């Protein structure tokens, strides 16, 4: 602020020399709007402003209107003086009035052009930072590739251009494209197109080496680049979506011919956005690849969903130990009989250890047993061969398992069960009595010589044989927090399940055990239930004997 005199105490209007050398333009005009004084700076700025000239003739409209507004009768002498602002030539000025009691007004003009520009730049910068922050939030919240791609196209179309295309790396001979217009919704499509037809696109799609944004002559691009209903593009840029070693794709931005083109600053900004989008998309692509691989592995390793096979009901349930280790040490399989009237084979087992090592052993056991299926009638032989296949001089990781052959005989089911170092199956009679199958044997895979005694069982309609792993019986919890679930409790639960359908029993056991452990840690829990169907209905309903009751 450059003042040597306090204007509020009165200004020597007539002795204008005081103002003439002031570094700010100063203009004094009277109540009627006639200019009284113009200092040197004001004279240079407003060449037509001379003492005696009306304001309306000498200054821009915004300033003469301001002067007129001030001349209107005021509410009180102490009213706050306002500040006006407007352009003078190509500069922007603020005009600060000081009003004398006589109605004479002294106008200070302050050049705020640079200040304005700085403010504007700051505002844009803040907007962009906020936009990039929002983009990061949206993009990083999802690991779904389609969603990341859509968000990228949509945000780019909303904030960077009139339309945006996200091009993914080629799939076969097709170029996957997501297009978004203005504030519309992203649309996925694919084009049989040669990326080389758009300058810079091939390089951008390769993702490496890093390439700069390319300006593309709108007249040279193929039709598929311009979205339907867009009109004539005025400018087009191609920006790579950098993918951290994985090609993520490219972003094409279009602006219409009748609007402004891209400034270099905007292009830099688009690149910043593309960097974030590319990172998010490549993370999503890696996640999708990995989860696809895991899915395949899971399908191999996770227990199958069971159903009725040849008149015998099977149901199974599996609850892995920790959420992040989905492949645990327990497993089960049902191998349907190869021929009519032959038994189906159920295998339920528990592999020592956990994580990947356990999963590898589980896979080996399941594969080996599958190969040994022709011997399914001879449990001892199967177990001996499996043991030989698993014996390994480097470790003593072992498995315990139960083999159970089951075949329908009339309304009943005949079973042979063999435990290889595993808790013997429990049989739930129709009366609610729970019996332990009389079978004992050696664990598999660590001791050269194994032996096992089988038990023969007979399930009347509605009766059930339950194969389980010790994850149930050894689960700790309960209302007091540290009690073992134990075999007694399992038997008590099963006694209540007499006559229930196989799925219901599995669900019941799993639910009671899950409530028992609560939020505590627990081991894998696997259970397979083999039931003789309760009803004779399979043959009783005309025309409905085909396997339509399988769930």
């Amino acid at each position, binding site marked *: 602020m450059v003042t040597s005199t306090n204007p509020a105490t009165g200004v020597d209007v007539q002795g204008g020399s005081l103002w003439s050398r002031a570094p700010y333009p100063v203009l004094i005009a009277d109540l009627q709007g006639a200019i009284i004084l113009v200092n040197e700076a004001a004279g240079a700025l407003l060449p037509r402003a001379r003492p005696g000239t009306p304001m309306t003739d000498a200054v821009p409209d915004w300033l003469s209107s301001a002067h007129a507004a001030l001349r209107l009768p005021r509410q009180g002498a102490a009213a706050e003086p306002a500040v006006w602002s407007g352009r003078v030539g190509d500069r922007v000025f603020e005009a600060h009035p000081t009003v004398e009691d006589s109605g004479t007004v002294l106008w200070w003009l302050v050049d705020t052009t640079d200040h304005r520009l700085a403010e504007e730049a700051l505002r844009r910068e803040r907007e962009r930072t906020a936009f990039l922050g929002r983009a990061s*939030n*949206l993009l990083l*919240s*999802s*690991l*779904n*590739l*389609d*969603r990341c791609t859509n968000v990228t196209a949509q945000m780019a179309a909303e904030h960077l251009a009139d339309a945006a295309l996200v091009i993914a790396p080629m799939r076969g001979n097709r170029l996957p494209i997501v297009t978004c217009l203005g504030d519309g919704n992203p649309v996925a499509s694919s084009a049989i197109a040669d990326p080389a037809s758009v300058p810079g696109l091939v390089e951008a799609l390769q993702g490496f080496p890093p390439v700069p944004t390319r300006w593309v002559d709108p007249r040279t691009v193929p039709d598929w680049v311009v979205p339907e209903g867009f009109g004539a593009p005025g400018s087009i840029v191609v920006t790579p979506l950098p993918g951290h070693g994985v090609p993520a794709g490219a972003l094409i931005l279009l602006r219409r011919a009748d609007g402004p083109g891209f400034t270099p600053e905007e292009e830099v900004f688009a690149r910043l956005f593309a960097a974030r989008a590319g990172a998010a998309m490549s993370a*999503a692509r890696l*996640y*999708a690849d990995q*989860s696809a691989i895991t*899915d395949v592995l899971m399908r191999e390793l996770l227990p199958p969903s069971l159903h009725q096979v040849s008149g015998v009901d099977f149901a199974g349930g599996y609850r892995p130990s920790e*959420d*992040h280790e*989905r492949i645990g040490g327990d497993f089960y399989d049902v191998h349907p009989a190869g021929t009519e009237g032959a038994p189906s084979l159920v295998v339920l087992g528990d592999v020592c250890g956990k994580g990947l090592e356990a999963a590898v052993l589980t896979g080996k056991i399941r594969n080996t047993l599958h190969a040994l299926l022709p011997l399914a009638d001879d449990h001892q032989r199967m177990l001996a061969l499996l043991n030989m296949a698993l014996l390994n001089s480097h470790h003593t990781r072992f498995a315990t398992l139960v083999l159970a052959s089951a075949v329908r005989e009339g309304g009943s089911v005949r079973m042979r069960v063999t435990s290889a170092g595993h808790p013997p199956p429990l049989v739930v009679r129709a009366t609610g009595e729970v019996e332990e199958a009389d079978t004992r044997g050696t664990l598999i895979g660590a001791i050269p010589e194994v032996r096992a005694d089988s038990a023969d069982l007979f399930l009347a309609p509605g009766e059930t044989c339950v194969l389980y792993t010790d994850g149930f019986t050894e689960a700790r919890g*309960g*209302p*007091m*927090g*540290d009690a073992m679930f134990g075999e007694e409790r399992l038997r*008590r639960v099963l006694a*209540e*399940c*007499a*006559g*229930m*359908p196989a*799925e*219901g*029993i599995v*669900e*019941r056991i*799993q*639910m009671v055990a*899950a*409530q028992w452990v609560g939020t505590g840690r627990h081991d894998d829990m696997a259970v397979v239930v083999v039931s003789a169907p*309760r*009803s*004779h*209905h*399979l043959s*009783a*309903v005309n025309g*409905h004997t085909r396997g*339509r*009751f399988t*769930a």
Partner: protein
Amino acid sequence: MSTELRSAPRRTADLEAALWDAVFAGDEYTATDLVQRALDDGADPESVLLDVIAPVQFKVGEEWAANRMTVAQEHAATAINDRAVAALSLHAASRTVAGRGRITVACVDGEWHALPARLLAEVLRLRGWRVDYLGAQVPVPHLIAHLHRTGPELVALSSSIATRLPTAHATITACQAVGVPVVVGGAAFGPGGRYAELLGADAWAPDARSAADRIQRDPLKRPVPGHQPIDDLPHLDDQEYTMVTRTRTSLVRAVMRGLDQGFPAMLRYSDLQRERTAEDVAHIVDFLATALYLDDADLFTDFIAWTAGILTARGVPAHSLPPALRLLAGELKDFPRATRLLRLGIDQLAAPSAHSVPARNHP
């Protein structure tokens, strides 16, 4: 029990009654047969799901609460209903083309009552959505991994037990954090879905039909990331919920000790009866914690009334409830919100109408 059926009853109410008989008798073949024949005769699959199977399932819960069915029978009935749903979904009449978007249907972790979610999944499938039904008891990491992989338009989340609500809240927040909106349903969310909004769900529906209508009518908006769950429930700042949850086991033990000393009847209890009593006490603590989480006294007093009603229905006098609540109040005397809830619970038991059985959002 099985009867030979030439055709299923025509009227919905008759079909429901016939299905109920089959389900109550544990006769899955008659149950699935009824459903298939009804569809053969031209019944609308959605109507069979929602006007026949759903009411039968509701009745199963009622019968259990009234002690006319054992827990095991309840499971059996539910399994049979589940088979009936499976039979329906395999029937030619239920074949649809998935022309709409993709939806994930799941139960909150710890939730075993999967049938309501399954019914919704089937209804959505019938209406042309592509549905991933994840079933009961879905751990949050599994659900989120599934969302990343499949990128559905929304998640439909079911919970029937109120004590799962804190987990439901964590699940809702996690889904929204990955940009997927959540519609919730099930008895846990309280009368009129009052807890759904509190926990930040994007929508609530009282039943499968209105959920499907709601989803169809107006697509749920993608949630904006950056939401902080603590903002939903500022009262959690006092840590009372955390404290009660963390000391659950020692609270149960303290109450059991107190009952041993001050409640002579306990001395004659068998081990099994003692374990049941400890389970009841643990349930009280769980509901207390949930009521603290939601800052909702009704949730606790309703549960106390319900427990008293259930015990009475089973011929077990609820004498041990007031001392148990008083013992808990003694343990938690430094926690004003918990103390107030327990006092309200004690008052509830003293009130003459305490033993009615209100709507079920309890185990």
